[in-house]
């Protein structure tokens, strides 16, 4: 039901592209009703997302964390878990990386930065492994518990940055202690996009290979497809589910760590900007395929990036990008019902009976 069991290549691609076009059409009709020229809006949407060097860089910067939070949905989904806790795992990743960064003060950056990223990933992994363990051993629904975990993570963040780890030198907004500036990671040479993009794309590629080409990935898909079959085959069901959840959590935690070491330099409520929820959207648009996550994250990142330009050109509210993203999400979900209905997409063997 989550759509992770099978990747039906061409059919999935056609349905998704079709759904995105339907969503764009619906959005165009909506903006026409508000008195704007839809084609002018489409053009600005494209220009704001991919039209100039600056807009492409913004799109890539926004897409990077979304790729990682999407993996927090995709990898557990392969094992049949619907995890929506990416937002919380990202927050925990940010907190973990700040604590590691402060603890490692004085260490050489070449050693400290990888450790900080690792600490963020580990914090996210543990955070998401807990709901998976509750599911395995207590039968607690993982979707509901990860939703609660998001709120708990944000409360924890607010608590820590407003007291225990607060940097009182920042009077305006409660902010944690900063990590030493030597540990910050810079931008990719020739682009003003931070290294998080490389981590995001690399994580998606690795996830694709692991889920597609390894015994572990195959075992996960058996578990996700049919729990009984997995038990009958003697697979270590609990260990597999926990590992899948932890890997997903690690990806989202890494996203939080990257936001700290590449953007903010400290943890604050600025970490909570909806990357986790955008990751859910991207995972479903990509139909739980890690390679498609890269493309879907670029699409969603591009839509978010063009929000500012839409605002300046047409005076549209900045929620315009959220509306379009919501339309795309709904259209993609609706298109699931068309699987197997489009005759020209069915494989030959299905027709020859």
């Amino acid at each position, binding site marked *: 039901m989550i759509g992770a069991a099978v990747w039906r290549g061409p059919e999935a691609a056609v349905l998704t592209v079709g759904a995105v076009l339907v969503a764009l059409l619906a959005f165009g009709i909506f903006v026409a009703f508000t008195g704007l020229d839809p084609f002018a809006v489409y053009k600005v949407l494209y220009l704001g997302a991919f039209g100039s060097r600056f807009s492409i860089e913004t799109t890539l910067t926004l897409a990077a964390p979304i790729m990682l939070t999407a993996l927090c949905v995709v990898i557990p989904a392969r094992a049949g878990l619907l995890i929506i806790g990416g937002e919380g795992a990202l927050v925990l990743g940010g907190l973990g990386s700040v604590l590691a960064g402060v603890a490692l003060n004085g260490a050489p950056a070449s050693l400290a930065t990888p450790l900080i990223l690792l600490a963020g990933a580990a914090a996210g992994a543990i955070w998401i492994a807990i709901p998976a363990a509750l599911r395995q051993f207590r*039968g607690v629904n993982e979707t509901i518990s990860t*939703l609660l975990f998001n709120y708990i993570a944000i409360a924890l963040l607010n608590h820590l940055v407003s007291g225990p780890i607060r940097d009182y030198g920042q009077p305006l907004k409660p902010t944690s202690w900063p990590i030493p500036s030597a540990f910050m990671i810079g931008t990719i040479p020739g682009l003003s996009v931070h290294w998080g993009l490389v981590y995001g794309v690399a994580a998606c590629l690795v996830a694709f290979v692991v889920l597609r080409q390894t015994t572990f990935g195959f075992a996960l898909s058996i578990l996700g497809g049919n729990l009984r079959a997995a038990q009958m085959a003697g697979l270590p069901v609990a260990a597999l589910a926990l590992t899948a959840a932890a890997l997903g959590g690690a990806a989202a935690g890494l996203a939080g760590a990257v936001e700290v070491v590449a953007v903010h330099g400290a943890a604050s409520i600025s970490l909570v900007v909806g990357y986790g929820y955008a990751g859910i959207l991207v995972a479903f648009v990509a139909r739980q395929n890690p390679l498609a996550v890269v493309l879907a994250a670029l699409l969603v990142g591009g839509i978010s990036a063009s929000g500012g330009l839409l605002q300046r050109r047409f005076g549209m509210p900045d929620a315009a990008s959220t509306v379009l993203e*919501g339309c795309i*999400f709904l259209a993609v979900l609706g298109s699931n019902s068309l699987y197997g209905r489009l005759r020209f997409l069915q494989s030959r063997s299905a027709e020859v009976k």
Partner: protein
Amino acid sequence: MSVGGDIGVWSVLLAIVGSALRVSTPYLFVSLGETLTEKSGRINLGLEGTLMMGAMSGYAVALGTGSPWLGVLGAGVTGAAFGLLHAGLCSLPRVNDIAVGIALFIFGTGFAVYLGKPLVHPVAPRLPDIDLGFWSSLPSLRAALQVNALLIIGILLAPAMLWILHNTRWGLKLRTVGDSADAARALGYSINGVRATATAIGGFFAGVGGAFLSLYYPGAWTENLSSGQGLMAVTLVIFARWNPINCVFAALLFGGASALGPALQAVGITSNYYLYGAAPYVLTLVLLIRTSSTKHRLFGAPSELSINK
């Protein structure tokens, strides 16, 4: 013990009761709505979007007509439309209701903020107060007992809903669809039809809950109006064990818990402010852990609910 200390304690308690009564109303409406939807075997995780749409449209209608009660009605109708959208998508094959809920959460929030942009400055008429503390001469008590008619309507709705679920033909039909789709199909019921009705009514309630936010407390339309009351609906329903009467207590408890931090802050206890804010979520989690089992579904949960499978 000084007299001043006593008054301090009492005023904190009264402040908590007063703001619990105020804060709990949207919780009550979303949980009643979600209970009805889940009783039909479907889960709507998108009530946050519905709540925001209700708040925005309620404010707009009240502004346009000058009547806050027409605003409440408008909010309910908008919410019902969102419920029908959810039901329509979920009735398609291979469409996951939880995913549709998340999509409607994103879409509804964005849409409400988009359409509500011109509503940020104008002032719409507010829903009137009901002075339940008229018999008292203590100003703090009177302030605490100043409630809104919607709270009373919600509290009356709960037993009515329980009665309808257990004593009417439609209630039986709804529970049948929620507990065994196969049995309902064998009886010739339209499963999608029943679920669509339940989701639309659930959306209506959530929309009314939103109107409370924009038309009474806090009483204005802003982009950050909701603090996740809609997302909490699913949790509240689990907490209330799918029983409308329990929804009242769950809503009051959650309202009280979210009033705890601000009330303590008002008397100068500011440490751990945010941890108190997390109390409802931790409480629900503990409850879930204690009552869940790998052997059986949650006590009271409709069997067709996807979170049981």
